[in-house]
């Protein structure tokens, strides 16, 4: 699968949380691939394991209870899981950066925003304070905040501005890969669009790749090149944006799409997928979605279906994938 363009390749990553109440199987063999300059969108319900995957790539899983059981995270050919903590620290922020979900809590309340941007720059570059300060100011201007406001504290900024600052921090060292964990979930809709535009703009400028985690299918349609649908710690459907959106095969993907309210039709209740996500400490043996799937047969409940290629780069984890809809 891997070629010269592949920046990050995750192979069969398995992550578990070993708690007192049992083993939480958060990720069960996830494989993804991100090409240079491209964006992969990961979509799934709360608790599907999207954030675990993002943190797993950066090795930020709190341990204990978290544990990376097996798999590989190849970045530029190197397996990140085999690096020492010291080497990993050089990757974080410089090569791979992360934007967190809630801008309200992701900034240090007792440091000025300029200091916080400088912090990353000084951490990864051997330059003087003066230069770092200048670069931090440039970063601020770049994300649309006047540099004079650099010595203000986070509580003096609005949510959207804070998210801009966080983007500035994440991109200050021009990382090759940006992991955005629901970057717009905590913002209101008008700001969402601005922030997405900004990320898009900077991403194009530096030719940065991105792993975008969201549960907003609209955001994915707007920004991503590839889409992965995550369900109970597995990728159930994967392909280019067009393949997945135009020709969805997995019943779960169909359910997700159907739950988007339609602008034209007047409906009383929104469409839902019946049931709840399976308990991650006690996952079903076969297809994880079988309990909620209206097409499920006994065969589905026997063993986990393999990823099947259904044309192009489109892969689906469903035994019915190749049959007619």
């Amino acid at each position, binding site marked *: 699968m891997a070629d010269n363009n592949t920046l990050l390749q995750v192979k069969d990553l398995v992550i578990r949380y070993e708690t007192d109440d049992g083993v939480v199987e958060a990720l069960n063999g996830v494989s993804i691939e991100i090409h240079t300059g491209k964006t992969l969108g990961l979509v799934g319900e709360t608790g599907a394991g999207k954030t675990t995957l993002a943190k797993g790539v*950066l090795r*930020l899983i709190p341990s204990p209870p978290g544990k990376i059981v097996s798999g590989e995270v190849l970045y530029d050919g190197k397996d990140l899981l085999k690096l020492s903590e010291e080497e990993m*620290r*050089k*990757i*974080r*922020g*410089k090569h791979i*950066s*992360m934007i*967190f979900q*809630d801008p309200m*809590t*992701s*900034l*240090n*309340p*007792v*440091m*000025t925003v300029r*200091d916080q941007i400088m*912090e*990353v720059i000084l*951490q*990864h570059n051997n330059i003087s304070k003066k230069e770092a300060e200048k670069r931090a100011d440039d970063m601020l201007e770049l994300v649309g905040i*006047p540099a*004079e*406001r650099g*010595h*203000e*504290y986070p*509580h*003096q900024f609005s949510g959207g501005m804070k998210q801009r600052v*966080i983007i500035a*921090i*994440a991109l200050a060292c021009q990382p090759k890969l940006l992991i955005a964990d629901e970057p717009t979930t905590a913002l209101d809709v008008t700001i969402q669009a601005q922030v997405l535009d900004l990320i898009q703009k900077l991403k194009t400028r530096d030719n940065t790749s991105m792993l975008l985690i969201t549960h907003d299918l609209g955001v994915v349609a707007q920004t991503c090149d590839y889409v992965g649908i995550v369900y109970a710690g597995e990728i159930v459907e994967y392909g280019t944006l067009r393949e997945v959106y135009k020709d969805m095969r997995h019943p779960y993907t169909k359910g997700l799409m159907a739950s988007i309210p339609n602008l034209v039709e007047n409906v009383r209740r929104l469409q839902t997928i019946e049931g709840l996500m399976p308990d991650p400490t006690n996952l079903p043996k076969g297809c994880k979605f079988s309990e909620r799937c209206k097409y499920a047969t006994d065969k589905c409940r026997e063993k986990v279906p393999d990823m099947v290629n259904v044309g192009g780069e489109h892969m689906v984890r469903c035994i019915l994938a190749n049959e007619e809809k």
Partner: protein
Amino acid sequence: MKKDNTKELSSGVKQRSLWQDAWRRFKKNKLAMVGLVFLAVLVVIAIGTIVVDIVTNNYIYENYVIKQNLRGRLEPPSAAHPLGLDEFGRDMLLRMLWAVRSSLFMGVIAILISGVLGGLLGAVAGYYGNKTDNIIMRAMDILLAIPSMLLAIAIVAAFGTSLVNVLLAIGISYIPTFARTVRASIMTVKDQEYVEAARAVGANDATIIFKYIIPNAMAPIIVQTTLGVAGAILSIAGLSFIGMGVQPPTPEWGSMLSSARTYIRDSWHITVIPGLGIMLTILALNVVGDGLRDALDPRLKN
């Protein structure tokens, strides 16, 4: 950190750091300000008496503060002696003033001892968690199970009554309180998203601890320190009252109270005055502590 804070900005927003904000809120609290002024006066008195001692080469101290004058014993307040004379004919006002330093400075030093030791233990326990946390905190629980006054008495009784022993005794008995406070606030801050975010951009442990965790965990610790000083002063006075703290003839509010209590029926002034001194100081420290707690609580921002 705040080089050009005074500069007015194009946005028109005045620059304020978290601490400046807190000070602004603190100033609005009248009672706390009164307490703070009272404490400031005490500090001035304490330093002032030390300066006087140095300048006069202990002349006033030896001839008025500790020299006995039995002819005037138990004299009630008068124009010459606004607070009267004590059971040995010494001027109460001067003794009160000279006593400030032992109470205040000993209180502060004792709390510094427990603050540093307890803070360190609490920080280690809170940051590393698990086994380290368990071992340290169970040791603290054992210490906490012994009433602090009893522990201080035991330490002083075992090692003798010297200034250092009194300070150590009180310092040690306050360690668990500090360890608990620091541990709790470190644990809250440690799991904040901004700490994780710092880790995600490659910050190392030292940066995270000193720039992210400690500054954010300071507020409750400061409040605890203020309240702790009040407790320590009370403990010193208590130890002196039972004769295990500051030894006579050195003036100290607790020991003055103790030696005066025999005369309470005839000469109220020599008991009431040191008692008032202790009470007002503790009250001021508590009021300031409460004011700080309110001022440092970001939820009360207005």
